[in-house]
């Protein structure tokens, strides 16, 4: 009782450090909402009794109300913090999330992610002239147009703007345009080599 499940959800999220997204706990969420519903119904019943004279119930009603508010707070904070983590994923990972992460999200969260992607894309298209401005690029100020990269794992073929394809095999080094590789570096496929 007393909002234990809601608190457990919050604790789990707090423990997951570094913005990591743990799986969505549908079952615990459902139980917490069930608890809230039961508290609410009992309060409704007691309020009508209290109005007809039983003042000793007022404390109980107040107590249940506190529990309801507490549950509400825990659940809202849980959902909101998860959304913040999912939003961070768009900026750190890119617009396509790997399946392992998608399994951790509920359907509504996947829906929210898609909407967020769309809003971000619309916004990026609207700034910076005709082709828009990709805000997720150049997170650090660039020093040169082309950069030296080393491949950390096999990634297959990679096509660059002038049509040539490059085979990304482990430990191969290439000299590539910055804007093509930034995504792959952030995902850990390539490594930026400083000369």
């Amino acid at each position, binding site marked *: 009782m007393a909002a234990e499940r809601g608190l457990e959800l919050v604790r789990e999220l707090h423990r997951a450090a570094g913005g990591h997204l743990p799986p969505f706990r549908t079952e615990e969420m459902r139980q917490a909402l069930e608890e809230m519903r039961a508290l609410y119904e009992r309060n409704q019943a007691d309020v009508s009794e209290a109005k007809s004279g039983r003042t000793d119930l007022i404390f109980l009603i107040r107590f249940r109300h506190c529990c309801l508010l507490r549950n509400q707070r825990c659940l*809202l904070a849980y959902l909101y913090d998860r959304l913040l983590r999912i939003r961070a994923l768009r900026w750190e990972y890119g617009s396509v999330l790997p399946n392992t992460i998608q399994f951790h999200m509920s359907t509504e969260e996947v829906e929210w992610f898609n909407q967020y992607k769309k809003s971000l894309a619309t916004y990026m298209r609207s700034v910076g002239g005709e082709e828009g401005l990709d805000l997720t690029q150049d997170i650090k100020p660039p020093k040169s147009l082309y950069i030296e990269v080393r491949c950390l794992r096999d990634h297959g073929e990679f096509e660059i703007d002038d049509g040539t394809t490059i085979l990304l095999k482990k430990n191969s080094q290439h000299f590539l345009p910055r804007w093509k590789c930034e995504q792959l570096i952030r995902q850990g496929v390539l490594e930026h080599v400083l000369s």
Partner: protein
Amino acid sequence: MAEAYFPVGPGLGMEENFLSLDDILMSQEKLPGRAESALPRLAVLMGQGASSAESIPEGSKLEIPLWLAKGLHDSKRRIISVELPKIYREAWRTVFSADANVVDLHKMGPYYYGFGSQLLNFENPENPEIAQTILQATWGGSVLPVSDSVCSLQTFIARFRRIMDSSQNAYNEDTSALVARLDELERALFQVGQKGLNDFQCWEKGQASQITASSLVQNYGKRKLAEVDG
């Protein structure tokens, strides 16, 4: 450097942030209190009693979480009254004024400062002294009205100096010994200091323009390996 996850931080001063995970955990900490009237069926509700007819008699001592204390408390004290936990009382205040640095604040309740600020919400004649001891001066926005009473060196100011020093000078070391005795607020400050130091060192080495794999992504990669192995 460019980590995109910005969680809701804990509130400053006497207000909590509703959506902050830190504040929710902090308000779960328990307070000693006293029942001002007979509380029916509280034992069952708090998970302590078995029979549903049991009621806690008036005057008995309770330990309730902060959120419940805030919800049930009112100025006329009809339901419960709260007392200060012992670490905020006179005896401990003299310990802090003697030397604040030796106290293990993590053991005292990992949210010493946050919880202390919340206690000011309950009227208590010792509030100015508590505030003086814990908070004053560092929070520019919410300076509390304190009396001129000569209260020796405030805990926070006393400890802050050492936190700042150690966070700026511990580069690439194991800092667990340093942070073991800090409460959550101090740990957050320590981490901010460390991050600043690391960013500066990175810039000095000329690595500031190097694109790095996002640490978020790296963490996911490590966990995936762990799942496959385990």
